[in-house]
């Protein structure tokens, strides 16, 4: 380690991030568009939290409100107790945001971009101490040999790494990653996740949105799922995996599926995946296949992964136990 890294907080009593009854309505020529409706949950300090949902679910809108890029129509958002509107400077100093879009300033080199970004947050650009941290960021993100290269000369993956470095340059206690691995190679994903996991272990709170559900399953201790601007699941990752169909039948088949199985199946080419809640249901599915004269090949029975849970929840087939309390309790109580 070239420089010691100390998160700028010491076990604060308040949540790292708190969304309370957050709503967002956009006015468009076709009328009001409700992007978010009454979203409430807390993320505790030190958590690695996943925010999942299909395109248009409201993930980026929620993060935009958190970052100050958009304003909530209703509700409040705070970071380490600092309201993102009335106390925006303290809230933003606590946040490091990696934006979804691959953006860069073409006028500057990588090191200049990092020094400038740090300067916005009050990190003196002429201090050697901060350059030591910049060097450590560059080293950990595989950018050491690109420090003096102009941003325009970098590949897409390299630019993505610089975005991560820019978000971390002021040493924020809360890190927000909005689809950071979209369209990047395996090597960068590995490098990035090793580094972010290390920061999380050191005490940083991480909020991640991603479409790569295996990443969320591997990294996030707790997950919220959004659908059409509303929280449809919020629980520990392990509870989400256990709370829905926990068995998955996978096989290959050329013939069409019997109609009675089509609704609960996911078909990708020849590969068929069918969720089952228990052994009896597995028996029933196999019976239906036999009766229909189907001959499944390479049949496997395994545990459902987060992708299966996600699809099940998004199709409205299941709600997590925690979420099932929604009708009887305020949504705040859903935070686990």
């Amino acid at each position, binding site marked *: 380690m070239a420089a010691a890294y100390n998160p700028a907080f010491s076990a604060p009593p308040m949540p790292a991030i708190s969304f309370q009854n957050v709503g967002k309505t956009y006015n468009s020529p076709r009328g009001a568009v409700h992007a978010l409706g009454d979203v409430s949950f807390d993320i505790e300090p030190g958590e690695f939290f996943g925010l999942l949902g299909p395109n248009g679910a409201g993930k980026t809108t929620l993060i935009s409100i958190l970052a100050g*890029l958009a304003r909530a129509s209703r509700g409040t958002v705070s970071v380490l107790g600092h309201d993102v509107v009335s106390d925006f400077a303290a809230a933003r100093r606590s946040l490091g945001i990696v*934006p979804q879009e691959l953006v*860069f*300033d073409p006028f500057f080199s990588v090191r200049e971009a990092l020094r400038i970004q740090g*300067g916005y947050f*009050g990190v003196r650009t002429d201090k050697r101490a901060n350059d030591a941290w910049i060097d450590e960021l560059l080293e950990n993100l595989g950018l050491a040999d690109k420090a003096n290269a102009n941003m325009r000369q970098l590949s897409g993956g390299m630019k993505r790494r610089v975005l991560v470095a820019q978000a971390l340059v002021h040493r924020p206690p809360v890190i927000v990653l909005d689809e950071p691995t979209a369209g990047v190679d395996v090597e960068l994903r590995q490098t990035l996740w090793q580094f972010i996991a290390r920061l999380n272990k050191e005490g940083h709170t991480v909020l991640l949105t991603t479409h790569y559900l295996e990443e969320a399953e591997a990294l996030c201790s707790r997950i919220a799922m959004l659908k059409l601007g509303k929280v449809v699941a919020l629980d520990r990752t392990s509870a989400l995996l256990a709370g829905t169909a926990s068995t998955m039948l996978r096989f290959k088949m050329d013939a069409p599926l019997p109609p009675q199985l089509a609704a609960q199946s996911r078909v990708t080419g020849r590969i068929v995946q069918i969720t089952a809640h228990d052994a009896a249901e597995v028996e029933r599915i196999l019976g239906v296949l036999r009766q229909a004269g189907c001959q499944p090949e390479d049949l496997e029975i395994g545990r459902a992964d987060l992708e299966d849970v996600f699809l099940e929840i998004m199709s409205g087939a299941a709600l997590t136990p925690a979420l099932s309390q929604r009708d009887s309790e305020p949504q705040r109580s859903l935070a686990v």
Partner: protein
Amino acid sequence: MTAIFSGTRTLLYKEVLRFWKVSFQTVAAPVLTAVLYLLIFGHVLEDHVKVHGVGYTSFLIPGLVMMSVLQNAFANSSSSLIQSKITGNLVFLLVAPLSHWAWFCAYVGASIVRGVVVGAGVLFVTAWFAPLHVDNAAWIIAFTVMGAALMGSLGLVAGLWAEKFDQIAAFQNFIVMPMTFLSGVFYSVKSLPPLAQAVSHLNPFFYMIDGFRHGFFGVSDVSPWTSLAVVGASLCVVCGLCLHLLRIGYKIRH
């Protein structure tokens, strides 16, 4: 407090560094343009026109200097902001803990720096072509800083309002350019017919040019105090509008 000043200073530094990195385009090109104006108009009119008792080339130089200051101050803030908006890198600023005052001071400060650098460049090159003396440096400095600040603020307003480069170009070509050209850069408004003179007096650019020129020759079309009052009032209005738009995040925070 230190963090606030550091953020403002960094944004100012970044904005100055941005135009300095492309100084061939942002400094050298406008100096060359001004020199070409001087060579062409000076060659044609030097022997035929005297204004306020001075030769035409001498009269033209302060006007060209101030026109360059104003146009480049506007170009600096407007082009920087619209580029950042369109390429998306404005997000780096939007997530930073900078107040609307910090944005305003940094962008307008950088506009003043660019206006002064280009104006000094034009003055340095054109001063070799005709005799020029300074009657009162205080007027020159006051109108340079206030004019550049006004145009830097106007550039910020245009940059916030515009959603594409076309709109900034339209603002520049259909508002800024005609108002500077018709402000008395190339002539004294006293030489105009009464109606055109009255219309010219409604143009704030006229007062910026006239007050600036007073600093060199000690004579002008209107009193420099009148010019100072008009430019000061215009500056307050544009700065107020600009700060309001920045505070509400007009077209940048949704």
